[in-house]
């Protein structure tokens, strides 16, 4: 089982965070993500799933609790420092730079590697191998991409640094059903190819359960249930989310 095989890549203890002063959205969440495994966080709307990822990536500072990766305390660091530690974040919105070409977008993904031409050329080739559609349009403005291709580009951009921890927020939201398996395939590939720890927030419970190794159910900013994938059948998971909605 990958769970016992992986070492702990990311650990959250009692994390509290939110946007408005005095209003906590994440209220004491504790969880961990292992290397070479996909950890999913599911829960009803408003459970604090996206806020949790934004807090890990440094867009929000935790009000209490600790976020650690190896020996590093991440809480309070700005996003660019967290990125430099080998953590990637794929936000829910399609995240591309429309006025830049497709290739420039990918190069921006390799910002922390700038100056290492050979490495960047290598990674570009690797990305183009996986996404021939992007290779075809490499010199086009990225605003000319279709919605699915733009999503591919925002995922591919984060793969340029081969991060050791990947935070993924709703990767299939708003995608054509035919593209969804492709997105999940990229994530499972990152798990095996670079032994990355993947923390995936998803509304698409069915699709996410298929690739997950470990499950957390988040409700009102706290972990309500967790366990290896074997303990989470689709029926039990749906029932847990329904129970959260009833309160």
């Amino acid at each position: 089982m990958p769970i016992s095989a992986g070492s702990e890549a990311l650990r959250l203890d009692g994390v509290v965070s939110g946007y408005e002063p005095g209003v906590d959205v994440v209220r004491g969440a504790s969880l961990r993500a292992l290397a070479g495994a996909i950890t999913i966080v599911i829960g009803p709307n408003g459970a604090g799933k996206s806020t949790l990822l934004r807090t890990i990536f440094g867009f929000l500072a935790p009000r209490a609790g600790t976020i650690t990766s190896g020996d590093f305390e991440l809480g309070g660091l700005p996003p660019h420092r967290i990125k430099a530690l080998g953590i990637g974040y794929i936000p829910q919105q399609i995240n591309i730079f429309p006025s830049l070409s497709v290739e420039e977008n990918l190069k921006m993904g390799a910002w922390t590697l700038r100056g290492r031409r050979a490495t960047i050329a290598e990674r570009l080739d690797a990305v183009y191998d996986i996404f021939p559609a992007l290779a075809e349009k490499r010199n086009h403005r990225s605003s000319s991409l279709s919605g699915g291709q733009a999503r591919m580009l925002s995922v591919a951009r984060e793969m340029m640094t081969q991060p050791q921890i990947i935070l993924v927020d709703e990767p299939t939201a708003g995608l054509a059903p035919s593209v969804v398996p492709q997105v999940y395939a990229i994530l499972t590939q990152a798990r095996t190819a670079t032994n990355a720890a993947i923390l995936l927030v998803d509304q698409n419970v069915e699709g996410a359960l298929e690739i997950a190794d470990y499950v957390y159910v988040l409700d009102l900013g706290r972990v309500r249930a967790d366990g290896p994938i074997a303990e989470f059948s689709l029926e039990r998971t749906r029932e847990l989310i329904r129970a959260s909605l009833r309160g």
Partner: protein
Amino acid sequence: MALGITFIYSIVRLINWAMGAFYMVGSYLQFILVTQVFGVDRWWLAVPCSVALVFVLGALLEPILIRPMFAGNVERKDEYATVVTIALLLFMTAVASGISGPYQRTPGSNLGTIVLGPLPVSGARFAALVVALVALGLFYLFIKRTWLGMALRAAADSRTGVQIAGVDLARIDQFAFGGGVALAALAGALLAPVFLVFPTNGAMTTTKGFEIIIIGGLGSIPGALAGGLLLGVVESLGTVLIAPQYQNAYGFLLVLLILLVRPVGLFGKRLREV
């Protein structure tokens, strides 16, 4: 000048009303460097020095005055930026008046009148045009060919996106503000022998800068270039064909026309839908 305003706006998302003050500082630095250090024959050495000094000034002021806009809970960012930059404009103008008095000065020029075809042109004006074109070319190469230039364009697209890519956004803002005011200083230094050096000499160029922005579209760099050209042509044609006294009025008429026909400017994007 217009390029500087649009450059800062497109990245930092604020309109810097103090651009005229940085134009003024650029012209004073040029005056001081030419008269005290380099001498009138080496004015072309003084220009990059003045520009570099204003870049440093801008980069030092940005963390103090502009950054608080993004930290903490500033509720009305636009109003904050307007108040802070107008205050800065008044402050810098007042300091300049205090130090230099209301006198109009000139660094002088070693360039005589040159004749372009049938037109006699003052050498200083022609030099300003040439240096400005070279500077634009360098600016374009910098924006298109370097990592930092690419990050600046990316930041203009998405401030969140560049942070996700691992760019230190605070540094980008600082650089963009310094670079933008340095462009104003370039205009000030180049035009010092033409429009003279005094504490409020930035006012007319700031007005022209904003006219160009309205014509070309806020936040669009090609718009700033096209707007500048169009404004110059319209003012000159009006001067020759109608009456020279109203030179500045023709530009404002063009602005009114653009606002009626295409309020976002020639290259502008609609930011808010009703």
